[in-house]
């Protein structure tokens, strides 16, 4: 049995519209639930009929401390991403350009650590952080996030540096520049495209992290968005409007970034997936 071209086009159209509806449904329902009072038991598919009920948002901000959480997420993501970029680019340069036996070994070790799931070392990491007073601190979670994202960054930078013609660096060497000047003046400015990829991959991962942040950030003044919403959600089982409002507040920054930088997000993710 073969479908006519037109019928087939119709099937594809229904599939696409259906998938889009499925993907948007949770966002839509969060929007309706967050804008209705808990006493409103109308279907969650219906918008609020008596005007928007803002108290859920007020509650998410006061009780859920969502603004503190957004601030914490910005601080942690910014610091950790900058460190990943700086340490990653620096480390990748000698590993890509001086392929001695030692450096190959170091590179392989970094690569191999991509296979270590964060939760597999939960006990020793938490024990270590507890001993050096890193639990519930910015520097503690930043250090863990950096160590988690460095290997992929180093790999992406090293792959990219290997595609840069070495003749540029050799010419500079002949002109009397030393290796450090060559890196900072010649190589570093060329790394912009791969830096965009690294920033997006590491930034999104760190911004959304829950598995480590859940255990490392346990006080309400230190929690980032993900653990803050997790904690608020479990306290608010009878008042899901506030939990939905907290989710939307936590969602807003990434949504705005996505609207403006959509192209970079998709490209960066593909580059990361193919290399990783």
């Amino acid at each position: 049995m073969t479908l006519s071209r037109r019928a087939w086009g119709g099937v594809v159209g229904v599939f696409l519209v259906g998938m889009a509806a499925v993907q948007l449904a949770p966002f839509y329902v969060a929007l309706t639930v967050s804008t209705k009072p808990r006493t409103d038991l109308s279907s969650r598919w219906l918008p609020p009929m008596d005007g928007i009920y803002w108290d859920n948002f007020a509650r998410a901000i006061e009780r859920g401390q969502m603004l503190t959480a957004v601030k914490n997420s910005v601080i942690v993501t910014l610091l950790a991403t900058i460190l990943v970029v700086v340490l990653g680019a620096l480390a990748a340069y000698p590993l890509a350009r001086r392929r001695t036996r030692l450096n190959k070994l170091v590179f392989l070790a970094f690569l191999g650590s991509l296979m270590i799931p964060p939760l597999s070392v939960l006990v020793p990491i938490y024990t270590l952080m507890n001993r050096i007073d890193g639990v519930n601190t910015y520097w503690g979670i930043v250090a863990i996030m950096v160590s988690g994202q460095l290997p992929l960054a180093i790999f992406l930078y090293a792959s990219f540096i290997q595609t840069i013609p070495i003749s540029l660096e050799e010419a500079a060497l002949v002109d009397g520049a030393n290796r450090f000047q060559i890196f900072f003046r010649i190589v570093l400015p060329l790394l912009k495209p791969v830096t965009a990829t690294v920033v997006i991959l590491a930034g999104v991962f760190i911004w959304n992290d829950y598995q480590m942040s859940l255990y490392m950030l346990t006080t309400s003044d230190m929690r980032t968005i993900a653990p803050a919403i997790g904690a608020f959600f479990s306290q608010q089982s009878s008042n899901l409007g506030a939990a939905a409002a907290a989710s939307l507040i936590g969602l807003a920054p990434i949504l705005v970034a996505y609207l403006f930088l959509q192209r970079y997000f998709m490209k960066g993710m593909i580059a990361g997936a193919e290399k990783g």
Partner: protein
Amino acid sequence: MSINLFYVPALLVFVALTVYPLISGFQMSFTNWDGYSAARSFVGLENYARLLQDTTFRQVLANTVVYGVGSTLIQQVLGLALALALDRPMRGRGVLRAIVYLPVLVSPVIMGTMYYLLLQYNNGALNDLVGLVGAGPFAWLSSANGSVAIIVLVNSLQFVGLSMIIYLAGLQSIPEMYYEAASLDGARGRQLFAHITLPLLRPAIATSVILNLIGGLKLFDIIKVLTNGGPGYSTNSVSTFIGVTYFDAQSAGYASAMGIVLFVMIMATTLALNGLLNRRRLDS
């Protein structure tokens, strides 16, 4: 001064927060430490022997495999279908891609919270829908098997956009002239797909399968939010169960052994798949 100095800072972070914890976790897995007290004694392989006997852990392990394999299957089928449908020029293509992809960027904790509003028994949005055809209401998250299936589905839908863009990139790398040549030889739609598209998508399939399988085997966030491992311990993955064993059951030694099992599992899967799917070597 050697240029190798450039990787010293990264190496220090790596040794302190990756190598050292891995070794120390390995040591802890041979002890009966509770995670708090100073007392800990060497118990040899006791924790590992206990893992083999532990029926709860056996279920957790089975769940983990279902999360990994189930998500991988659904994401490949849906991701490839979406990529094929959204590869050809059409109106609204960009918007549809953006919508399908959007959840990839959202924290799974937020996705889980929002999905809970759909799946809840009382006033849940999904029950309203099935109610339209006279079915339900269902308690979607009340049984172990049902919850595992829903977690697989939610995880698959959240990350199907990633598979889609990997397949889109793969499709775009296939030169148009292959299709033209085969069409001249009389090949039609299904034959073109089977003999040109699929074989040339191999690298994309490999990338997507490895990413989805590893992601599924490590699943944590969605489970925590949707079921918190319950009812009972029946929907835990190894990742979530490590946290439960460490912080709730206060068995740090036992949790460390689970960590080693998880690490070995992920490493073996990665190496096996890389070999099996014949990817170009990462290094040199």
